[in-house]
């Protein structure tokens, strides 16, 4: 179907390019500058996203200067085809507008929860440095600190050390401080969770730690700093924490997600 207003549609199609590029570029730039990008993309890719946002905005601005609309004798697109194309190209912009302030819902966290521990190979994405170095640091920390004096542990470090028999023995019964997101479980137990993003949120996986104790929290997903005693059952490497105290942190730690 050809339109009765070819010039009008040709111009619309011409302006669709800078419009889309501008909208996409602004979304990416805002995500990057607001720090929200860390919620949906691994930091390895942030420079690409930032650079690409600038390129898109540059193209959007310079496009009318560099290119003219096509000849009016060109075949005019149909209104339906052009409308469908515009809708699809602008869909990411509308999707961004629909996203809530806190991107990661507790529903999303729960969907991606696995009770099993992640293998150390998967953790390499988030715990840089030589494996031996982390092992040495964790061992030294446990040996130089009395068991009743809490040591700070990242949830990923805890998963790493839980898979080594010697480190498990050193940390069993040790008081630790761990950050994570609160997920309700039952009246006597809750989970401390962290979402790991390997590439983007589509491949996100939630790691959790079972904590025995009660909190008066209501909102799933609240960030929490938990102090507790680490325990391992004799025949398993799955850690659990006996709650001593908890606080809601004012500032979140800078996770290398």
């Amino acid at each position, binding site marked *: 179907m050809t339109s009765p207003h070819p010039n009008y549609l040709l111009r619309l*199609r*011409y302006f669709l*390019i800078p419009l889309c590029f501008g909208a*996409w570029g602004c979304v990416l730039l805002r*995500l990057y500058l607001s720090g929200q*990008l860390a919620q*949906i*993309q*691994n930091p390895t890719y942030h420079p*690409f*996203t930032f*650079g*690409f946002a600038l390129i898109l905005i540059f*193209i959007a601005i310079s496009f009318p*200067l*560099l*290119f*003219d*609309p*096509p*000849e009016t004798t*060109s075949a005019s697109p149909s209104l339906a085809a052009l409308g469908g*194309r515009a809708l*699809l*190209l602008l*869909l*990411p912009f509308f*999707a*961004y507008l*629909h*996203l*809530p302030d806190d*991107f990661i*819902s507790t*529903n*999303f966290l729960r*969907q*991606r*929860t*696995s009770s*099993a*521990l*992640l*293998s*150390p*190979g*998967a953790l*390499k*994405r988030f715990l840089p440095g030589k*494996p031996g170095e982390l092992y040495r640091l964790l061992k030294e920390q446990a040996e130089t600190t009395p068991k009743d004096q809490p040591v700070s542990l990242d949830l990923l470090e805890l998963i790493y050390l839980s*898979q*080594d028999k010697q480190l498990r023995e050193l940390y069993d019964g040790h008081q630790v401080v761990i950050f994570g997101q609160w997920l309700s479980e039952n009246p006597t137990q809750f989970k401390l969770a962290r979402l790991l993003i*390997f*590439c*983007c*949120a*589509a*491949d996100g*996986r939630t790691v959790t730690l079972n904590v025995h104790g009660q909190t008066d929290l209501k909102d799933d997903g609240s960030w929490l700093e938990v102090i507790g005693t680490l325990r391992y059952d004799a025949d398993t*490497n799955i850690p659990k924490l006996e709650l001593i105290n908890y606080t809601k942190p004012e500032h979140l730690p800078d996770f290398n997600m």
Partner: protein
Amino acid sequence: MLPHLPEITLIFTSLFIQGLPFLFLGALISGLVSSFLPIEKLIAWMPRHPLKSACLGLCAGLVFPSCECIGLPLVRRLTRKGLPLSAGLAYLFAGPAINPIALSSTWLAFSFEDPITAICLRLIGAILIALILALSLHRMGRTWVLRPEVLATTPTNEHLTQSPVIAASWLQARFPRLANAVQITLVDFLNVSLFYIFGALIAATVQTMGSTFLNQTGTGLLGIPLMMLAAILSSVCSSADAFVAKSYVNVSLAATFAFLWIGPVLDLKLIVIYHSFFQRRAIVLLTILTLVSVFLLALALSVIPADYLNAIYWSTQR
């Protein structure tokens, strides 16, 4: 579907953000290659034998850092210029899995076990699958496999005035080759982006609806199809898929490699993006061939005695 809308939106946005810069990079490379390199001469120099040209495509995949998103616009454009089908397809299917970035992430992910064996397994599987797909599709012929607009060959330097979308003005007058490269980049990028956005939407919807399958793992032979399904659903970029594969614990080595072999060739968003290049019947054939060959390869891996592979099998009960 509405209760899941926030999760669908989140996954869709993240896939869009993740893939788009690399799609653009692919389109930019294709624009620059088409406009500044004597590509017809290079193509004329290439061997006509399908296996030989496929091997050349594999070599390119080993050398150039690329992912699924970079490869497609480039292969699409070069195929229009007359690149042998088997060479382009071998690069398209193997490149994302065997390029230096994918191999280095495989090395890191398996660094606690035996990374060399892991890399060898990944390379062998990816190359075999790419060869099976490239040679099979080559045998079917270009007109059977490719979309009509890809079949329409174009001269080396298309003129901007031929474009139905934009016409050159300032840039064309001063830098005609650069103007040509920019035009090809923009047009290719927009064309593939349309498919990518649609693919990301489908992938986000199906992944959210079928999220229970994402964490499903099985022991024995059942583990292989479950991990293949997880790879197809999760649409992971090949630059990081080794870490994701290692995040599934208590799965067999064969199932882990089934995940790594199928992901760079076939996932929900890729199936949609392939529509910018292939005819629908070719996508059906490609899907069936990929599923069967990955399953059979993983099956072959699973019957290798465990003693030979214990070195790279991570036991959580260590």
